[in-house]
């Protein structure tokens, strides 16, 4: 216990030190905010990028400014940098990205253009004028998992996931933890497709899961394919990125949806007011502050279940942690001890699946 307190103290001191550095020159915007957005995929991809584009439109309406965008700028530095520089040369002073693969290029740009503010969802780099941010997606996926747990008759739920690393693994694990809240006997089978956007593999994976007897399907990929398969097969599903009722109205029971504008609108205001201090560790946004929320629930979800889900959402907003220990991995090893919660670093590095998940990270 003492060791842990010492560690927390050390981290706090370190963080304070970094914050102090950031304080040294608070970011000042030159002129009125003039944002521009760079998308890594087409604006109507049905998932991640479309959620960003919808946030952009809501922000245009709310802030009364125009936010131009450029779509499908691949995650290569030699493509990202010229795109950003074209906007900067035209007087844009807030450049927003859209991908993890933009992290390095944005870091370089932020150093080259210290008078411009850079914001990058899913990025990993930060600086005095660069903020990466991501949502605590395990919270919204946990709530959708609750719906899945309530709806399953076979006590078997499935999950189609993209690539096996921290921020995907935590959604798989949280989904099962949520399902267990309303159904202690439920088990989960996960398939990793190895790609963010591969509808063919997603379809094959979802169908294979259905053949194994699952009757609710969750997902963390960039397309609505798993929900479409769920609707074809007459089972239920929960979506991610956007409200998947658009694609599978009969099957979609709940969706974990991005609400970037809830985070970015206040951030823009802070930048304009000269009060913006980027978090040197990146902003990790909880369900109450933007990031992801849920679109719940579909007509098939009983009212008492919906009430329980919304009550649990309230608990998360008020500080409840999804990964409250004890958490055991597939081999039965304790990963989060009784009475503890994982640090954000532990979450990003989550390289295990919890007990009750069938499937492998390799």
């Amino acid at each position, binding site marked *: 216990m003492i060791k842990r307190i010492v560690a927390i103290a050390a981290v706090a001191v370190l963080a304070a030190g970094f914050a102090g550095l950031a304080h040294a020159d608070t970011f000042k915007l030159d002129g009125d905010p003039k944002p521009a957005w760079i998308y890594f995929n*087409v*604006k109507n991809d049905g998932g991640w990028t479309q959620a960003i584009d919808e946030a952009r439109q809501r922000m245009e309406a709310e802030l009364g400014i125009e936010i*131009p*965008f*450029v*779509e*499908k*700028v*691949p*995650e*290569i*530095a*030699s*493509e990202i*940098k*010229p*795109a950003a*520089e*074209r*906007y900067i*040369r035209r007087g844009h002073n807030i450049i927003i990205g859209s991908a*993890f*693969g933009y992290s*390095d290029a944005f870091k370089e740009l932020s150093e080259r253009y210290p008078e411009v503010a850079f914001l990058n969802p899913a990025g*990993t780099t930060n600086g005095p004028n660069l903020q990466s941010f991501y949502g605590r997606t395990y919270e919204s996926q946990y709530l959708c998992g609750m719906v899945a747990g309530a709806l399953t008759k076979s006590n078997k739920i499935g999950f189609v996931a993209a*690539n*096996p*690393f*921290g921020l995907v693994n935590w959604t798989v694990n949280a989904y099962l933890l949520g399902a267990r809240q309303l159904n202690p006997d439920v088990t989960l089978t996960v398939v990793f497709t*190895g790609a963010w956007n591969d509808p063919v593999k997603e379809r094959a994976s979802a169908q294979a899961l259905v053949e194994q007897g699952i009757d609710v399907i969750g997902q963390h990929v960039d397309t609505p394919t798993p929900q479409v398969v769920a609707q074809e097969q007459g089972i239920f599903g929960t979506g991610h990125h956007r409200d998947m009722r658009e694609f599978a109205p009969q099957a979609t029971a709940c969706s974990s949806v991005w609400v970037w504008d809830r985070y970015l609108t206040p951030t823009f205001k802070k930048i304009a007011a000269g009060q913006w201090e980027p978090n040197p560790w990146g902003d990790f946004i909880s369900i109450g502050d933007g990031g992801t929320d849920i679109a719940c629930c579909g007509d098939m979800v009983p009212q008492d279940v919906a009430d329980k889900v919304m009550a649990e959402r309230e608990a998360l907003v008020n500080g409840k942690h999804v990964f409250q220990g004890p958490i055991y991995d597939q081999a039965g090893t304790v990963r989060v001890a009784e009475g503890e919660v994982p640090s954000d670093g532990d979450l*990003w*590095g989550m*390289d295990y699946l919890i007990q009750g998940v069938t499937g492998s990270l*390799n």
Partner: protein
Amino acid sequence: MASLNILSARRLTLEVRQRVNPIYRLAIILGAASVGLGICVGILLDAGVNLASIYEEFIVFTFFNAAGISTVIVESTPLVLAGLSAALAFRVNFWNIGIEGQVLMGVIGATLIAIFDIGPQSIRIVLMLIFAVGFGALWALPPALLKVRLNVNEVISTLLLNYIAFYFVMNQVYGPWKDPRDKFPHSEKYETFERLPEIGWEQVHYGILVAAVAVVLVWWLIERSRFGIRSRFVGANPRMALAIGLPVSLITASSALFSGGMAGTAGFVIASATEFRLTPAMAAGYGFSGIVIAFLAGNRPIATLVVAFLMGGLYVAGASMKVFYSLPDALVGLIQAIIVLSVTASEFFIRYRLRLARYERS
């Protein structure tokens, strides 16, 4: 008189041109390019782009301004190398569709040296280049051997090796080469001495020197060396080449290896001059662009340089279009395809003469 019209009719005939005047050839290419450009201007006007700004923003901004031209140079450097790679193989009718995969293997080779800190720092970058060339060539070796020994179609074998290379990259970034610092799916970043420096003008880097040396080497190999003459013979008529005792298999296989090595060099430049690490989004179509470039350049090294530069300009202009008008990516792709197709199709009018011939009916 009416009877005359029945007796004599006109029809279009195709004639093979015996000799093509170079000026005539150039005129046809330019004519075809202007037809393509004309169609594109029509499309752009329809999309709401202002006619006056087309010239200003796409021609002047791309080619006649330091920021624009330097972006084109950076964009075309790997394209030159990919084009040379295609030209080397296509000259001997080895249809190397696997340049994309060989580029990726080049990146793997360079990254291997970088992350395991092999060799002293002073020559690290040279070692990375050598390994990139070696890995690229290695990836072309199986298709080359299969072709000359077992007559296996190289279109299929090289194409399929692209996927294997891609999944190998994915395996490395999600597995053993995952960045130990942030646990995200990319390799750790190259050190300063593992990067190609910038030459000090805009953001142009020493990859330009690598490309220049490659052009000279390939020019010598193709146009001046004994190997070049022999390979031209093999390309023109392999049976005859075999009949007069040329080592056809050896020439074909070594051309394939040169091609792979050149693709590996492109990978080295992308990795060490712009990306500084192995990422899952690497190659991104360079290989396929290389095929088009070599075709348009008639597999000649100097022409490859010119075509690659123009192609780079086309990509950069397309990227500006997306930024300035938020045009859909598909529209920009369509415009680029129309221009490339028009120029490609002009080959037909260079080879053949269309004539309205009159003939008498008997």
